């Protein structure tokens, strides 16, 4: 049953992610990225992480990508040359090679480890019982309080930085 949902979602994520870099019109690229976010959100749902799934849609699809579209539309970027027609062949090859290596580095260890990695304390059963949101909240304000606060300070600095730059 899980596979029935996972395979289409994973395929959708891969296809839309490829379209982001292959399509020529920047508006379509941005929309493909929205599609990727939806597929990811679906995969989070399969992992019983409803909170993250919805936040993914609200923050990325609903806010950040709208701003991206906003900018793309205002700049009227026109059509980019497709990737495979670009002049700089050596650089293109290096780029693709690096990405493939990076992927292999990710895939090989994960593939061989999953069998013997110990289960974390937040299993799907626990989440089903307590509720995903409550669990995330509790962990954020106890175990991960310091990283959480540091993240918020970094975000605050970014906001202040944006204000300062905009005032110039």
């Amino acid at each position, binding site marked *: 049953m899980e596979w029935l949902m996972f395979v289409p979602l994973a395929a959708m994520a891969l296809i839309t992610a490829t379209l982001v870099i292959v399509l020529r019109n920047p508006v379509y690229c941005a929309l493909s990225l*929205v599609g990727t976010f939806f597929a990811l959100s679906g995969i989070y749902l399969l992992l019983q992480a409803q909170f993250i799934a919805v936040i993914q849609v609200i923050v990325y699809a*609903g806010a950040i990508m709208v701003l991206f*579209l906003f900018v793309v539309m205002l700049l009227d970027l026109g059509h980019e040359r497709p990737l495979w027609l670009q002049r700089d062949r050596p650089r293109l090859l290096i780029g693709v090679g690096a990405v493939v290596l990076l992927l292999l580095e990710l895939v090989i260890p994960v593939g061989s480890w999953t069998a013997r990695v110990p289960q974390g304390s937040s299993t799907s059963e626990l989440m089903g019982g307590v509720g995903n949101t409550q669990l995330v909240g509790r962990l954020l304000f106890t175990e991960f309080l310091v990283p959480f606060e540091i993240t918020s300070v970094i975000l605050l600095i970014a906001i202040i930085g944006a204000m300062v730059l905009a005032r110039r």
Partner: protein
Amino acid sequence: MPEGAFFVIMVTKIVVVFGLMLLSVSYLTWLERKVIGDIQVRLGPMRVGPHGLLQPIADAIKLLFKEEIVPQAADRTLYLLAPAIALVPAFISFAVIPFGDQVRFFGQTIDLVITDVNIGLLYVFGVASLGVYGIVLGGWASNNKYALLGGLRSSAQMISYELSLGLSVIGVVMLSQSLSLVEIVGAQTRMWFILLQPVGFLIFLICAVAEVNRAPFDLPEAETELVAGFHVEYSSMKFAMYFMAEYANMITVSAMTTTLFLGGWRGPWLPPVVWFLIKLYLLIFLFIWLRGTLPRFRYDQLMRFGWKVLLPVALANIVVTAVFVALR
């Protein structure tokens, strides 16, 4: 409950809610024209049927048979897709809103909500935040400067007001300790949240009007400046789809206000569903009343109001509520 019965009940609920929603959407156009007519000392539609009651049907037939015009320079794919993108979120967000208590029907206990998700509130916000795509893409794909300006205005407006909208309900979430809309209604058994969260209620209502792009926040389609805004180039059924989305959003937003602040379907004597509908339609009436009464904001006023008034007040509301919840 056997699998088959569950399936039948689910499909029935979806079909009934969707059908009623479509019916309400078409008759809201009639209601709006009548109420605005009354405010402006006119009669409104009177010709088709008694008191113009068949007007929505006549309108629907007209819109269906009108010629469809696609501008030559438009981006065809997105131009055709945009109205659908606007319409779908408007309709699916109703899926988690409870419209009545449990009822017994043919020996089965049925919850009067399509599905009770434990993150229902976030689901509604997530879906609502997607509605803006239909407007922005429609404006861009038409390849018309008024449409583009309307689309851009709307994206800026919706993002700005979504923040305050989200913050205004945090008080409710703290009091009910749940994101499930069914449980939020359950937490209002003794007292409606409008009494405990009057500031939150006001902010939510204001932002809700801005979210559905209605007067006095109807800048995306400001007729006097932008002709008709993002849907200038749309005709026939595509035009109608934008309007259906607007009215469906109005219903959803009113239903959310009812659920979060007015005790949902709770009320004495009358059946729960009736109470829900009464509150829903009172809010919709309020929306129409606002449109007939208030002039439109200027764009800079709108932005300043959203960021410099609503957002700080919403944040202060959260702090005050948090103190009270902690002391309780």
